[in-house]
């Protein structure tokens, strides 16, 4: 039984370490030290765009299809197929697009950062940086954080678009119980600009946590090639749990007391 609780206790400890590490990274961003390395920041942003955006959009596209068919069949069962747009709008914008964005960020970007920085740590490149008088945290972690903040809002907005397009395909083209115009009437009626903003805030909170966690596990990797693999796996555990928690808190905060729907008074 003691064995069973060993892992959660370990995570609590590393949670504290991660908060400490993150505050150092955030301090570097806040006192603008990171802009000494603006070139590196732009390079990281470029890498992020080229290597990760398509995968993220792909996953969000599939989940959009999923929301579409679930919504269409659900509304069939209540005898209101014309209202499939409600389900699609809420499912996409409020819940599953942010969540899937978080999953794919954790899988692609988070573990990627751990693998990259971790192998730098193992091959003692970070020590070399510090000998040359460059702070590893600023140069490696803070630049990545700023780069992701530059790029990800736009990636996220596009992925909302991908999710909407996929839901439209599933509901209107594939199942076909509702006309295109009828679908869009309901679909746009049940969302408004603040919803997009809230959804964006949720996703960006996830992205910041994922990048920081990735940097922490990479920066503190030890124990040779095996260590990098283990660190990558550990970062994934932490990220999955935190993505769900952030998503839940965001929903409670933004929509918990106010459904923001055009029904009733």
């Amino acid at each position, binding site marked *: 039984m003691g*064995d069973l609780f060993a892992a959660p206790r370990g995570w609590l400890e590393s949670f504290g370490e991660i908060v400490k590490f993150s505050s150092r990274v955030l301090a570097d961003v806040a006192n603008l030290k990171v802009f000494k390395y603006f070139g590196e920041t732009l390079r990281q942003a470029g890498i992020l765009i080229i290597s990760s955006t398509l995968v993220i959009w792909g996953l969000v596209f*599939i989940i959009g299809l999923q929301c579409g068919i679930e919504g269409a069949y659900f509304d069939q069962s209540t005898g209101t197929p014309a209202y499939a747009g409600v389900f699609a709008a809420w499912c996409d914008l409020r819940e599953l697009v942010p*969540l899937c964005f978080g999953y794919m960020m954790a899988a692609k970007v988070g573990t990627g950062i751990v*693998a990259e920085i971790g192998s730098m740590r193992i091959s003692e490149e970070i020590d070399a940086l510090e000998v040359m008088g460059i702070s590893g945290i600023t140069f490696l972690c803070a630049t990545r954080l700023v780069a992701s903040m530059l790029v990800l809002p736009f990636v996220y907005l596009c992925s909302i678009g991908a999710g909407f397009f996929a839901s439209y395909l599933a509901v209107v083209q594939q199942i076909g119980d509702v006309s295109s115009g009828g679908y869009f009437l309901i679909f746009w009626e049940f969302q408004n600009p603040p919803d997009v903003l809230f959804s964006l805030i949720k996703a960006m909170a996830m992205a910041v946590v994922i990048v920081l966690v990735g940097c922490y596990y990479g920066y503190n990797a030890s124990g040779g*090639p095996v260590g990098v693999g*283990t660190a990558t796996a550990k970062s994934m*555990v932490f990220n999955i749990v935190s993505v769900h928690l952030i998503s839940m808190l965001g929903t409670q905060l933004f929509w918990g007391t106010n459904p923001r729907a055009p029904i009733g008074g």
Partner: protein
Amino acid sequence: MVILTGRTIVSAVTPPYSYGAEFTGQFLFALRLCWFPLLVSTVAFGYEAPGLQAANFLVLFGALDRLGGFFVLASIREFAPFVDAIVLAGVAGTAITADLGARRIREELDALEVLGVDPIKNLVVPRFLALMLVTGLFDIYALLFGVFGGVLATLVNHEPLGPFWATFFNNASTTDLWGSVVKTTLFGAIIAVVCCYKGMTARGGAEGVGRAVNQAVVIAFLAIFAFNYVFTQVLLATHPELTTIVR
């Protein structure tokens, strides 16, 4: 990966069945690693997505008692399997890739082959079977805690729980349950094959193992989601009685 799947299945059913001990070990390993993340994730997910949002919608119509019926659709059919698979891929899958990748890098796998021990029979098959079983069983666990999230959402709205359970059990059908368990068992197979393949083909030192884990989890996620879409579509289209909501 397809070749690895084929060889794994053939190797699993042909005697000798020498992988019993390793199978138990892997099963317990996955169980120990996953139970806590899965608990947190499913309660959070059940509370927020189907719980709060659907409750918001139903409260507007004063029909919160229908939330139970919605939970059959949302939690059993869709979200419990899906969160289950994501957590298993992210937690147990990455651990498997890291483990096998490390063995490949340290040339332990080559050593095994030289000794005449078949790595597929002794390493991949037990992981494959253990992950299938664990993912299928964890589906029930995820489902229970997902529904617990729904109960929380009902309580937050100050509604009695009686109508929730009434509509829940009115709508719950055996087809939904076995569909859910079969789906997650197949998810487990996908996760195991992808993660074992990526671990066993890792190369290039320290960065190689990290990159293998990275690719494994990305491919596993994409494969799970794509498979989920096809499976749901087939299940709903072939069992139209599932989509009828009982009052």
